[in-house]
């Protein structure tokens, strides 16, 4: 009963946060609503006894990915790009319908209870979720684990190449006014430099 109530609370807040994130005209409010969604998804993970996933959800999604979203939001001027953003409606609706169909298919066509392995709910609870993940991830699933490292390596190469940190690339970016419109007030960039890069 308590579990059901908690589930409805976390699920409801997840959906509400997601709706606000999509519908809010202010992009920063959208990002904060997304934070609400991420945190409540972590609550659902805790209810499912997936404590490690809940912690990772908070650390990676609410911590790192939301910061990434906020910085991406700060990269463009919402007034200038409004027309461009609204042109994406058909693609967005199409993708949304596809994802919804996939989720409904997964919800109704999947056998939820598979064969019972050695890691039952009771076993996971008694040894701890992080422990259970560690036992299989670093023995049976060592290959996917190392592949994950490679994928992150590629992601890092891609982001640095695309965002153009090379000297000539950055010069060109500034010529096209990609690096920010007006000159920020004195002292502000230096201070954020110290905070972000840690120098």
């Amino acid at each position, binding site marked *: 009963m308590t579990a059901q109530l908690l589930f409805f609370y976390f699920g409801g807040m997840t959906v509400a946060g997601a709706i606000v994130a999509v519908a809010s005209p202010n992009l920063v409010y959208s990002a904060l609503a997304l934070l609400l969604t991420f945190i409540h998804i972590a609550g659902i993970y805790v209810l*499912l006894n997936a404590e490690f996933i809940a912690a*990772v959800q908070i650390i990676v999604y609410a911590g790192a990915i939301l910061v990434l979203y906020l910085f991406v939001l700060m990269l463009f001027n919402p007034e200038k790009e409004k027309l461009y953003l609204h042109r994406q409606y058909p693609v967005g609706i199409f993708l949304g319908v596809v994802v919804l169909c996939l989720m409904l298919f997964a919800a109704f066509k999947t056998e939820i209870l598979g064969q019972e392995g050695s890691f039952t709910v009771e076993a996971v609870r008694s040894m701890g979720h992080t*422990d259970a993940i560690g036992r299989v991830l670093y023995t049976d699933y060592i290959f996917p684990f190392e592949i994950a490292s490679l994928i992150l390596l590629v992601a890092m190469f891609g982001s640095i190449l695309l965002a153009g*940190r090379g000297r000539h690339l950055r010069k060109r970016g500034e010529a096209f006014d990609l690096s920010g419109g007006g000159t920020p007030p004195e002292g502000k960039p230096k201070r*954020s430099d110290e905070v972000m890069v840690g120098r």
Partner: protein
Amino acid sequence: MLTNTPPINYIPVFIFIVVSLIFGVGTLVLSYFVQTRIDDKEKLSTYECGSEPISDARNPFPARYYIIAMLFVIFDVEVAFLYPWAVVFDQIGLFGLLEMIIFIALFLVAYVYAWKKGGLEWD
């Protein structure tokens, strides 16, 4: 799937979150009702370290912030893989140490690449 009882270990965390929410929201609500509000034009204007605010706050920021955030995401995911490894380290022993050395070595390649390409520099 949902089991009948919620994880009992997390009740202190839940209480902590509830208390902090009540404290945070309650302080704001209480002060809203208790305070006397005398507003004037200067008080309601945007405050920016005592100087006159210039231009819009929503200026586009430099793309460097994006790089830093991206690097943060990637290394954050790397650290997330370290937690369960540290928990079970006594059970997997030398094999676990070796595979983690390979894992970290690949990240070292990415780190050196980012460094050489100037991804960690500001100007």
